[in-house]
């Protein structure tokens, strides 16, 4: 048995015998400006983080033409639209998944390993397409966490991700470059 655990915890406990005052309590005033209409806000923010919105089935079909090798998460929603995928995430030109919910305030998509076909499908292929429903949009992170807690408490998926636009880097001279390691493009299509 590694004694480090007890050593560290006993040092922590003895350190905490000296108390520090709690910082002044936050006020009740809201931190963020109001979200407004959730769908409008999601569309604005998702576009601002360089996400692409596909507004009709025609647009979706047109968009998918560019990607012969498709990997899907196996959900009923995606299979209804696209049929079965042709390849695995490792060989795909595009990964198509559903999501747990969408967050209006930051234009984000939440995917879990359970719902969206594991971990790699939404990050390894060069493009990620999300098939969502409008009623999956929640106003903010607090609402998203409440929903996830209700859905998963006690049996969490092994991984969750809040995705806000394509992969990017600004490491070189703070010049924004899209497509670092993850998808270069992220698109959302509303199927209802």
């Amino acid at each position: 048995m590694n004694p480090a655990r007890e050593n560290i915890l006993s040092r922590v406990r003895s350190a905490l015998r000296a108390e520090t005052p709690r910082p002044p309590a936050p006020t009740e005033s809201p931190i963020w400006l109001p979200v407004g209409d959730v769908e409008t806000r999601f569309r604005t923010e998702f576009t601002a983080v360089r996400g692409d919105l596909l507004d009709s089935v025609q647009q979706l079909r047109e968009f998918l033409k560019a990607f012969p090798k498709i990997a899907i998460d196996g959900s009923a929603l995606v299979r209804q639209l696209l049929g079965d995928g042709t390849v695995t995430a490792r060989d795909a030109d595009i990964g198509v998944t559903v999501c747990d919910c969408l967050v209006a305030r930051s234009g984000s998509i939440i995917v879990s390993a359970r719902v969206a076909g594991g971990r790699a499908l939404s990050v390894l292929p060069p493009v990620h397409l999300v098939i969502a429903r409008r009623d999956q949009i929640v106003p903010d992170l607090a609402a998203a966490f409440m929903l996830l807690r209700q859905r998963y408490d006690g049996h969490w998926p092994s991984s969750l991700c809040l995705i806000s636009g394509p992969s990017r880097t600004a490491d070189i001279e703070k010049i924004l470059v899209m497509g670092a390691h993850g998808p270069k493009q992220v698109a959302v299509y509303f199927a209802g």
Partner: protein
Amino acid sequence: MTAAQQFRRAATAKVADPKHRAVLENNIVTYDAAVALGKTRYADWENARSRAAQIKWEAVNHLDRYLEQFERAVGENGGRVFWAETAEDARRYIVELAQRHGVQKVVKSKSMATEEIHLNTAFAAAGIESIETDLGEFICQLRGEPPYHIITPIMHLTKSDVAALFHERFGTPLTATAEELACVAREQLRRVFISADMGVTGANFLVADTGMVALSTNEGNGRLSVSLPRIHVVVAGIEKVIPRFEDLAVLWPVLAQIGTGQAVTSYNTLVGGPRRGSEPDGPGEFHVVLLDNGRTCLLADAEQRDALHCIRCGACLNACPVYKNIGGHAYGTTYQGPIGSVITPHLRDACEWSHLSYASSLCGACTGACPVRIDIHRHLLHNRRNAVQRKFDNPFQRLAFKAWFWAMRDATCYRVSGKLARLAMRFGLVQLFLKPWTQCRNLPVSPAQDFRSLWSKMEGTGPSAPPPANVNHGAAGAAPSKRYS
């Protein structure tokens, strides 16, 4: 050479380097603009800081409870927690784990904790290849340099510096754009991701109630590091724990806002254990190394305990006039800038690193920028006081203060020492003692008469006389400072 001498030498060289200054300024000006724009999303940024500070206070001041809760939850998720008292313990555990599983290649997602324990060196010594995957860290690794900044590892390099490096290593043209350079790194590293056996990441937060590790990256390297390899190892300081999953609704946006001005980072990932039965992929092994390495010493200092609130956002570095002039490498520490100057004497040797407490103008810009309200500049003063109390300061300086204290108490001594100091200034003797200051600044010319003699002349001319225009405030250079208690 001592750490203090190295610091002085490196800092002196950097302040005199105009290219370095221009590169840093360009970077920080862009950062400032993005942060200012990001703040327009907030109705009350100050309240966001208070909320974040409150969460971290709760966690740090009940650290034992939340660490145990986290450990339990990780176990329930099928992962394993290893407690490491020192960097050496952490390195040994990770390298042995890698050897036991026949790991040959490791991908690393940017992590300051692994920098702190020099994990790459340990992997190299064991013959295991470990590759940094964050673009900035990848470039640092190619150059054999430590990161320059907590979140902007190559803040000191220009695009042409990177282009020259990639030209030499990968044969890309010297005229490559930032986009082309990023693309080269993407291709190089994609192969590595697919063939790696182990992914090592840090943690932005450890969520106690769900046993999850929160990782924020813009590039997606964090996500790939936890998706493809068969083993995932997390290295995190014990202070990274937060009580509840829901706390991230405040901490994620606050970290992104102050780190880069984004509403949230592109990818905020939560990993809670190895793949579950029904999931198609993910590592089969999940290990979290909880690192003390001096953090409990800082915890025991109740006065400075809030320094453990730090979420490693880099805001205090960007705000600091000293950092802006000397840059990140001069500090010689894993954690640079004001917060690094506060915590390094606690995490490492207090005597060796106490000089960093003086790498500050005490302007308080760091404290003003800190999203979790750490009293950074006051802690620099605390460290100065502690160093003097523990007699870590220069004995010559101690003697000089004693002499000054003695001279200031007696009118005759005061008068005589003032006269001597003025003489010494005139004949260049003071300049000898103050060389580090005077070699790049002019010492004011001492006036012909001091205040005392002006005053005694004025007394003869009556109360209606105008005050003397040229007043010398006593001994050379030594303006009496307020005693700090």
